[in-house]
């Protein structure tokens, strides 16, 4: 879609309405992250979510969209075998070259600002209860001003991944309508970097490297967050499909059904697995399965059948439930919110699933149907470029500006230590001594 091209009034109205729903995805994630942590850091997690959204919006406004750009806007490109491979946009800082007249670029800038915030919310889940608020905001600057926009340019801004179809004959090029890779996997891989840099919470691996169970404090937050996230994700997938895939409003019913089905099957898969293993369904893992289904649905929501969406959600939910346990017990990754399993694993699965299940309208140039290779190149880029980049940048920042809170802060809880007041002042807040017996 050209940046100068105005959307039809119907498409613009639907797109604007869809973008208005996107903040509910962030609200849902914030509630889930807060509910899965302990009560003594509940307010801190929500405060961090709010601050991260704010910092991401400002950073993206200053330079994020200038790096990301939009299909049709000029970009720096390397010429390979006579074909341009766009690697970064040449836009102006502070959105100075965006025409606010209903153009695709203006809506992409708004959508991107919310997407950057959503990606930045994900690592809060893995760093909960030990990540300093100021360090969290500083890390968000790196993500929203550089890592996210760079990859988003390659996928949504007419960059080299999006052009793999035209340049290399790989299907339609790398497809990621709602951001399974661009938002979720980028955020999830950053979450893994943060979990490794911070190390586990105090007391998590105290007894002979066996992980101690530290249950979340509010299952109601977590499950209500899931319901809010569904609304937000429907908006995210619809707006992304219209803006970056050129999908007409006529396919929005399909996108909505696919999103809901994937979430439903993800939750049922996780609930079924935990019911089989433990005799009762586990609320937090079921919530993780629901979100993982949503995450996996995003990439191909406009190009898959409802049956395929259900299968993608089923696998996504199952993968999330298994990998939460695997990461915690085998790999020693302390991820209170399940961010790595849900967003990185689910996101990478969603990206690859497009290659296996996507159906394109009759007459579309299929370029030998090597769509799965294009998707594989996207996965390789996320693992081989984005992951080392985000890990390296956060390691570097951690050297100069330590991420982890002092041991005393962790013992007290981040609410009292960093904010000066607890989330539930009229209730008793449990200390480490209570948790560890």
């Amino acid at each position: 879609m050209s940046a100068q091209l105005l959307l039809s009034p119907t498409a613009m109205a639907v797109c604007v309405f869809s973008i208005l729903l996107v903040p509910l995805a962030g609200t849902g994630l914030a509630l889930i992250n807060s509910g899965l942590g302990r009560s003594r850091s509940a307010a801190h997690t929500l405060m961090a979510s709010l601050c991260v959204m704010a910092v991401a919006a400002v950073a993206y406004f200053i330079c994020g969209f200038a790096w990301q750009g939009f299909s049709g806007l000029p970009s720096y490109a390397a010429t390979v075998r006579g074909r341009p491979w766009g690697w970064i946009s040449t836009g102006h800082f502070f959105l100075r070259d965006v025409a606010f007249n209903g153009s695709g670029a203006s809506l992409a800038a708004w959508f991107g600002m919310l997407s950057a915030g959503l990606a930045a919310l994900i690592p809060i889940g893995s760093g909960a209860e030990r990540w300093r608020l100021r360090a969290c905001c500083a890390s968000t600057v790196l993500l929203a001003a550089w890592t996210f926009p760079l990859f988003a340019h390659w996928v949504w801004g007419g960059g080299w991944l999006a052009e793999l179809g035209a340049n290399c004959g790989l299907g339609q090029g790398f497809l990621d309508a709602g951001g399974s890779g661009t938002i979720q996997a980028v955020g999830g891989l950053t979450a893994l970097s943060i979990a490794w840099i911070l190390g586990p919470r105090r007391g998590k691996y105290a007894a002979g490297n066996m992980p101690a169970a530290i249950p979340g404090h509010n299952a109601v937050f977590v499950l209500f967050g899931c319901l809010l996230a569904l609304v937000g994700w429907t908006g995210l997938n619809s707006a992304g499909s219209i803006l970056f895939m050129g999908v007409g409003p006529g396919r929005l019913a399909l996108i909505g059904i696919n999103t809901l089905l994937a979430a439903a099957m993800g939750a049922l898969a996780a609930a079924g697995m935990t019911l089989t293993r433990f005799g009762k369904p586990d609320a937090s893992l079921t919530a993780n399965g629901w979100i993982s289904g949503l995450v996996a649905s995003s990439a191909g929501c406009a190009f898959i059948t409802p049956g395929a969406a259900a299968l993608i959600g089923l696998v996504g939910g199952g993968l999330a439930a298994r990998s939460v346990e695997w990461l915690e017990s085998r790999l020693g990754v302390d991820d209170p919110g399940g961010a790595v399993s849900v967003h990185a694993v689910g996101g990478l699965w969603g990206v690859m699933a497009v290659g296996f299940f996507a159906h394109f309208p009759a007459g579309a140039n299929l370029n030998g149907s090597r769509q799965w290779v294009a998707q594989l190149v996207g996965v390789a880029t996320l693992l081989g470029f984005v992951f080392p980049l985000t890990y390296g940048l956060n390691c570097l920042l951690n050297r100069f500006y330590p991420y982890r809170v002092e041991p005393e802060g962790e013992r007290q809880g981040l609410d009292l230590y960093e904010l000066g007041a607890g989330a539930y002042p009229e209730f008793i807040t449990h200390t480490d001594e209570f948790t560890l017996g």
Partner: protein
Amino acid sequence: MKLAGFLLLAAGWAIVVAAVALFSATALGTGFTLAGMGVELLGLILVVRAHIQRRGQSA
């Protein structure tokens, strides 16, 4: 070991990009893309093992 793992991740990505740039949609290009993914997988295993060892030493 961690550095070696991240270098392998980046090297695998470079192989994948070179494969699609030089061979486009051919069987050879697909083969090199899969080989690049294999290198990335090795790198990921090294990085994960490095972090498990570090945790074991600090525990």
